[in-house]
């Protein structure tokens, strides 16, 4: 197995984490899904200079990690190929926005640095929240929750197939890479001149396999409904929890909790 394949595979193999038993795992998938969406929406909506206000949003993932028994380390390890991409978003801000805002010793903190950190944290927080959802909820249940929210069955099926298929696709890509490299000794990767036919082949092979996979689902009675997902009904306690969480997010957004706490001690 080559490196990329191991990394992608780690990402797609959430099943092991799904099988832990914890209060978070037992929560209704629908409630978890809605809370996650609300969390991401609120996190992203912070102004790019509101770093201190936003920091309090870390409470939610922290709380979920401790309740679910999923190690933070696992999360960042699995996300290791996606995180740098998300972090890269704010990278140029310090160069573009050099207005000084404060001074720590002889170090000048500029507005650009603050907005860079805010953007990076927005990415990391959102990604972590999505990870927590996927790690504690089987994909089928997320799909069933989406259907409950009247997302078209076509889209949901597509999501499910993509998820299922990610493993097969990376395997296919890795077999092809290996076959290529065996006949191209001394090369570090697939040479750019072969990319066209390489990707074309990969696409064709993937389509064939996806076809078989979908056939196998249809042949066993799959019609776009997620009969096999555990019930996605909202219980009273799920609803209360959901209202509390979303209420807290909105509060965090509107009130500067960190500043408030700070002012208590001054």
């Amino acid at each position, binding site marked *: 197995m080559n490196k990329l394949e191991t990394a992608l595979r780690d990402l797609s193999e959430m099943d092991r984490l799904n099988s832990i038993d914890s209060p978070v795992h037992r929560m209704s998938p629908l409630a978890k899904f809605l809370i996650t969406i609300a969390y991401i929406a609120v996190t992203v909506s912070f102004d790019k200079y509101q770093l201190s206000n936003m920091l309090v949003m870390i409470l939610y993932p922290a709380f979920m990690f401790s309740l679910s028994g999923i190690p933070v380390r696992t999360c960042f390890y699995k996300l290791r190929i996606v995180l740098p991409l998300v972090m890269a978003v704010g990278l140029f801000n310090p160069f573009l926005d050099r207005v000084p805002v404060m001074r720590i010793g002889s170090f000048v903190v500029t507005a650009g640095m603050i907005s860079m950190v805010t953007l990076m944290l927005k990415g990391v927080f959102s990604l972590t929240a999505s990870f927590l959802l996927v790690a504690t909820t089987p994909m089928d249940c997320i799909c069933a929750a989406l259907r409950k929210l009247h997302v078209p069955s076509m889209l949901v099926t597509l999501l499910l197939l993509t998820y299922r298929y990610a493993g097969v696709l990376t395997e296919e890509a890795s077999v092809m890479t290996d076959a290529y490299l065996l006949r191209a000794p001394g090369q570090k990767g697939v040479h750019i001149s072969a990319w066209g036919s390489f990707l074309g082949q990969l696409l064709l092979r993937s389509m064939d396999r996806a076809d078989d996979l979908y*056939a196998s*689902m249809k042949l066993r009675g799959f019609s776009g409904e997620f009969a096999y997902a555990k019930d996605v009904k909202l219980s009273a306690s799920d609803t209360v929890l959901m209202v509390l969480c979303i209420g807290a997010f909105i509060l965090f957004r509107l009130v500067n909790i960190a500043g408030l706490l700070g002012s208590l001690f001054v």
Partner: protein
Amino acid sequence: MLEFRNVSFSYEKERPVISDLSFKIEEGETVGLIGANGAGKSTVMKLFLGLLMPDSGSILVDGKELTKEVLSDVRKALGFVLQDSDDQMFMPTVIDDMMFAPLNYGMSREEAEAKADEVLEKLGLTELKNRYNHRISGGEKRMAAIATILAMEPKVILMDEPTAALDPYNRRMVINTIKELPQTKVITSHDLDMIMDTCSRVILLSKGRVAADGPAEEILKDKDLLEANRMELPLRYYM
């Protein structure tokens, strides 16, 4: 039980894959569908399952002509073991996969799990129940794939190259399992020794037509016939 009546089919125009094919399989029979690579064996299976529709002619399953309207009933009666188990086992664990069809057909979770347990017990695979599909060996996966199909209680089982890419031990396991199954079975393969062990009747396909149809012992001993169709005698007939 299963019948092809003058069926023709092609993937691309002017390159017929199945040409005016007719044959009939009775309830309880185990039929080996043999032929060289590209003879059209997998295509015949896909036609039975309604994954492909014939260009002309008709296909009958359980007395019903295969049309869009009866497709879901027909599919419920047919269990298809795919050539590549990776494409078949798409749920995280073996038990999830086994419950997939029963739940889709309206069984409760308890019933579906009981059904799956019963099948696993019968095949001696209880150890696989909670294993992850991507962590079991090729042989185990093939057996698990057969188990997922049995859990949907089909009347007919279609198997596409069930012993392909298995080591001798796992191949033997699959053969013994096939022999135990009471359902009507259609098995494609060019593993003629396996066909000899499991099937009483053989249909030999060549370029989308029936080249021979008869008792397994007769056809599989006919060196000239097999060689004319790019196949070899089962090993046991080499002296």
